[in-house]
């Protein structure tokens, strides 16, 4: 490791461990710090170009060192996180009820793990993984699915009667979480035509593009039931344009967005609504923009309100 790389690692290390970023996932931290360096570049430049840091190096080169160090930190934290999430937070036994082929849950888990690692090498897919990782890593999905089946209203009807999933609530939660983890693949398979030149993520995709992505994703996730892969990719469709999309895809879309900026343990100010209630309320007003199912948002908002989430 060169002296510059060591300095960059030391500098980024201190940023990484800054208390203001405590509680964020590695990808959230990475995104925050990338933006921080971008926004505060002009202010940081004189200090970082000083003899204490990187003398005689142009700013773009300094940024390269810092970005690389940042990616190293994130990757170092991501590997065990993927392992822990897939091992402890998702039970893949639900595939036995969906699949016509006899794949072992452990094999599916291992294949998904590899797929996630692959996705995290793609810049936009990596960004898109933020929400799903946070959602699966916390118990958000499990808590809501449990309440959904207790209520026996719109969402449970959509899952049981419309999508015809005859699996337990826990398995539904695992299915939704798996769907969320597959969802970022749309970014990985998007070409220059679909993805704006700025490298921004695709918010919603067309059904034609979704079909292409499904075909590509199936190759990498050969052991995963096709319906799960389809659901993961279809979660990026607009519900207004595709009213027959899977309820698990709709839930995955909502929870992925919800968890993108989720800060567990966030203190709610007096006079403010709770975090989830606020988010679902705002999402109800923006449902067309994000292609969400409004009725689902209404029910999830109700659950958040009832439980003070």
């Amino acid at each position: 490791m060169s002296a510059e790389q060591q300095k960059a690692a030391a500098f980024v290390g201190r940023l990484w461990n800054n208390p203001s970023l405590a509680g964020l996932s590695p990808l959230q931290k990475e995104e925050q710090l990338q933006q921080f360096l971008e926004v505060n570049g002009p202010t940081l430049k004189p200090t970082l170009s000083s003899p204490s840091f990187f003398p005689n190096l142009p700013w773009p080169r300094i940024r390269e060192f810092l970005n690389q160090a940042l990616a190293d930190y994130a990757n170092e934290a991501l590997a065990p996180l993927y392992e822990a999430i897939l091992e402890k937070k998702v039970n893949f036994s639900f595939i036995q009820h969906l699949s016509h082929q006899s794949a072992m849950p452990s094999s599916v888990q291992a294949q998904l793990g590899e797929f996630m690692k692959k996705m995290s090498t793609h810049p936009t897919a990596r960004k898109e993984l933020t929400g799903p990782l946070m959602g699966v890593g916390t118990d958000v999905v499990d808590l809501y699915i449990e309440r959904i089946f207790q209520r026996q209203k719109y969402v449970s009807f959509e899952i049981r009667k419309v999508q015809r999933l005859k699996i337990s609530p826990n398995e539904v939660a695992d299915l939704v979480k798996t769907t969320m983890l597959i969802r970022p693949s749309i970014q990985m398979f998007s070409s220059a035509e679909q993805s704006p030149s700025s490298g921004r993520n695709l918010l919603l995709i067309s059904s034609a593009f979704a079909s292409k992505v499904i075909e590509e994703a199936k190759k990498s996730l050969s052991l995963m039931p096709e319906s799960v892969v389809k659901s993961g990719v279809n979660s990026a469709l607009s519900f207004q344009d595709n009213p027959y999309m899977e309820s698990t895809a709709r839930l995955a879309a909502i929870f992925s967005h919800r968890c993108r900026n989720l800060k567990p343990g966030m203190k709610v100010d007096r006079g403010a609504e709770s975090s989830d209630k606020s988010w679902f309320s705002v999402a109800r007003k923006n449902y067309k923009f994000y292609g969400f199912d409004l009725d689902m948002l209404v029910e999830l908002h109700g659950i958040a309100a009832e439980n003070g989430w």
Partner: protein
Amino acid sequence: MVSPRKMDGNDMKGRFRNLIESVVTTAIILVLIQTIAEDVLVMSGASWLIRRIFLYTGFAFDLFFTVEFLIRSWDAIIRRAFGHYLFRENGWVDFIASVPLLIFTSGPEVLALSTGAVFAGSGAVLGLLKVVKAVRMARVLRLLRLLKIFRRIRFAESVMVQRHTVRIVTTAAATLIFSATVIGTVFAVTDYTGTDEAWRSEGEAAAVSLEKRPDLAAGPDAAQLWGESRPSVLLVKDDDWTLYARNDDAVLARYFGPSDFTIRSAGSYSIWFDLRPAAVAQSKLNLTIFLSTLAVVLVIMVTYSPHFAITVSDPVNVMARGLKEKSYNLEVSIPPDYAEDGLFRLAAAYNDEFLPLKERSTTEEQGSALDISLDDISDLLKT
């Protein structure tokens, strides 16, 4: 080994000022307790020895607060901010609750005790009771000290809640205290007949009757009969000869202070009248005002502060954070009962229009709101 940071002049000055403020606050609490105790002791008929101690402590407190007022005034004058201190920093409270009390109540009382004279009660005429009553009324002004305590108590996090509540508390308490003092003083110097006025009239009538009919107390038996029929009479003397005494000398010495009786001459007779019932009536009034003011202040603090926080400062703080911080996206909680308030209609617009727009804008920018700022890494940039 890490050496402790050296304390600079400002730190020392700040610490000294805090120490002094703490001492003053403690004194305020103690003077309030002292004032209540003084009245309770009068009402309970405590011995003169105990009540005398409280007279001296009352004087000490009034002297302390007068000195405090003078120091603060001097400091303000040096800073050319006397007007600011007097009117904006409640210097008028410091003044009214110290100097007049020292000059008109505790000062003369202690002076009379130390010189052996009898303050107020030493007058030959019972009309001086009016002065005593008016002067005692002024002791209620010590309650104004409460206002100073409230400014030091941090009972609410929001500065705005504190300021509004303190303003209301001070307005209500000051109005109550001033009006009670002024009205009480007016009543004290007028001739409206009340319990203590009736007591005073009874004494005057007794003296007049003995002036006109000296034979009524001629001899111990007649004096005994006459004295027992007059509840306000303590002692009847003909020159130095005691004709009648309601209590023995030991009781008189133990329970009666110089201001608890007054002496009036009627011919060759000297009549000692008991003033304690009038003092008890005054103490009852003082305690009523004292405790009522405390109740008003506490009720305002307990009920109004949360109400103000819920209906004004909390929603304002939430909206201010939402407008200022990109990552803050919590909605304002709108209580159904107040939904039509102007502030909550604004909050509804914030919830329904601003937050969704902000969320879409953040998504379109493809970036999450920053939780870290340059301030968070200031130490890092210094290295």
